[in-house]
């Protein structure tokens, strides 16, 4: 069963990568001309994918600190998996936002000509630091296993392990304890960093006073809770498929534990959402109201009602209540369904991200502006084009393939060893 799913994920990722390549070709040969975002709705699908992935990354990282900082024993085997997921998602997020720039080659200006009053400059600073932390942390988390694989492994894994162990060879208990101590310090530094940069992405939208739908102090919090809910869900699904499964009971236990966390987070996120809708719809201000009305009964009502609410909240919550919560029958295998529910949450979360980015921009800042002059991009409607979808498909597949290949070649999952001290 699991190997079938793994195979399926490989196939989908490879096909996505191949098909998406055409989108990338178009992106590099036709620039922004085949996209539907423009002057009045300047941000589109790629920005939505960016906040989706960056949320998955921040959340996975924060969950990995449950292992390395909080040292929750139950989760000790999935620390590396969480870190590696954080890495894959970070790469996909950065690729997605890079594709969105009108001048991709100038991305360095964000650091070179930094403007500290711009949240986007802060993103540049925080992502670079976070990237560093994730890489270093991954290395320490993998070090002892890399050394072992370098000695005893075979084929590609062995060569790669030799290369990546950078000459380190000490796998004594003391050395491993030292690794854990370092991981803890890195994790502790990483926690405020991950909160800052993902809260910061929320702030990036939150500070835009011109778009009242974004302009709320709760934005960073909503982003963080969303990040934890979606990444917790992704991780739960990932753990089920790629995680250590030597002991069925243990896996079952982990799955239930994670399932409960995800359930709580999804519900809390939903609570925030309800509050946002109730307050927003009470308002008479068009810029507050219109985006919400568009979400609920605009052209793309199904993004909210079907993709997000039904598939992303109602169904998973029912499953999780039924499988993750009940006590009494601890040995009844529940992992598969919990993983399925979590997969639904994780995948459909892109709908939430989409509804954050797009509807806020559909309200003309000057009423009637859309009729004043016409031309490409001078409109307040947006529908991602095939090319935009293809690029996002490529970026997503790239992230997934990075994960799959890493998981194959690196000692990410090792059921034999405890990861927490």
């Amino acid at each position: 069963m699991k190997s079938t799913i793994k195979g399926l994920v490989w196939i989908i990722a490879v096909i996505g990568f191949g098909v998406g390549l055409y989108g990338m070709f178009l992106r590099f040969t036709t620039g922004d001309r085949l996209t539907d975002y423009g002057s009045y709705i300047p941000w589109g699908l790629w920005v939505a994918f960016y906040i989706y992935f960056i949320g998955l990354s921040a959340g996975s990282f924060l969950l990995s600190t449950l292992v390395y900082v909080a040292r929750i024993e139950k989760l000790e085997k999935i620390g590396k998996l969480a870190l590696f997921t954080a890495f894959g998602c970070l790469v996909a997020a950065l690729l997605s936002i890079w594709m969105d720039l009108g001048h991709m080659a100038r991305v360095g200006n964000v650091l070179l000509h930094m403007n500290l009053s711009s949240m986007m400059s802060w993103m540049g600073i925080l992502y670079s630091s976070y990237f560093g932390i994730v890489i270093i942390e991954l290395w320490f988390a993998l070090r002892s296993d890399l050394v072992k694989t370098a000695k005893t492994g075979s084929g590609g894994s062995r060569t790669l392990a030799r290369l990546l162990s950078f000459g380190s060879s000490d796998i004594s208990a003391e050395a491993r304890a030292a690794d854990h101590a370092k991981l803890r310090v890195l994790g502790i530094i990483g926690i405020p960093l991950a909160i800052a940069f993902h809260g910061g992405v929320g702030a990036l939208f939150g500070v835009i006073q011109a778009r009242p739908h974004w302009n709320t102090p709760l934005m960073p919090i909503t982003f963080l809770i969303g990040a934890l809910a979606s990444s917790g869900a992704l991780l739960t699904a990932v753990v089920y498929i790629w995680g250590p499964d030597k002991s069925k009971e243990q896996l079952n236990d982990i799955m239930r534990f994670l399932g409960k966390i995800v359930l709580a987070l999804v519900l809390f996120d939903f609570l925030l959402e309800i509050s946002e809708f109730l307050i927003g719809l009470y308002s008479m201000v068009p810029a507050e109201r219109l985006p919400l009305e568009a979400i609920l009964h605009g052209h793309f009502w199904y993004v909210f009602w079907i993709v997000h609410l039904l598939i992303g909240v109602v169904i998973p919550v029912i499953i999780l209540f039924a499988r993750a919560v009940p006590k009494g029958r601890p040995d009844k295998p529940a992992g598969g369904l919990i993983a399925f529910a979590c997969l639904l949450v994780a995948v459909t979360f892109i709908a939430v991200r989409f509804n954050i980015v797009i509807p806020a921009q559909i309200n003309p800042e000057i009423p009637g502006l859309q009729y004043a002059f016409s031309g490409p991009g001078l409109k307040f409607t947006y529908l991602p084009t095939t090319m935009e979808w293809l690029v996002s498909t490529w970026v997503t597949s790239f992230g997934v393939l990075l994960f799959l290949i890493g998981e194959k070649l690196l000692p990410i999952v090792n059921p034999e060893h405890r990861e927490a001290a």
Partner: protein
Amino acid sequence: MALIDVERHEIRERMMNDLQRALKKPINKRHWAMVIDQAKCVGCTACTTACVAENHLPPGVVYRPVVETEVGKYPNVRKTFLPRPCMQCDDPPCVKVCPAHATWKRPDGIVEINYNRCIGCRYCISACPYSARTFDKGFFYTDGTPEIMDYEKEPSFEYGREWPRRNRETSPIGNARKCTYCIHRVEKGILPACVTTCIGDATYFGDRNDPESLVAELLGSPRARKLREEEGTKPTTTYLV
């Protein structure tokens, strides 16, 4: 109506003289300002077109659209017109959000963009409460015809530099763009294109720091209003309503 009493033939002469006086001052002593009289605007969009021609604006890029509002019910309808250039805000949110310092407030009040530094993130477009910034995606009017005409590749002279459109990659393509108050003309002593083409003499331009100037006088009118002042952006562009 308390229209300020300026003889029609005097207006342009006076504004040209205002310009000359302002240009003699150091740059930080002058503050360019535009005043638009909505009561005089007839909605002909001559300014919009003149601006497109002056700045060689490609499809999808517009600096000064004229927004029409219809009031009343047919047959008793009236129209009001709102030409919308950049407000050259004194507290410009577009400048605050730019991650690359590619856009800034000049001492003479103009919000400038360095197209060569702009990364095309469009954060400023999101942040401008007037939708005054548009994104240059690299279209040509003669796209889809056998030949992209040479006149479309001619440079625009925004901010006193040359910005040709020889290909689809180099700036200003891929950048955020907006009204410059035709600063390249102004610094040569010529009024902005929209001002010179306005058939109703509804747009005034000059140095608001000079109490003798026409704009300074108009800014004191009880009819003077700023657009969406509650945003706290302190717009320079002022309307007479």
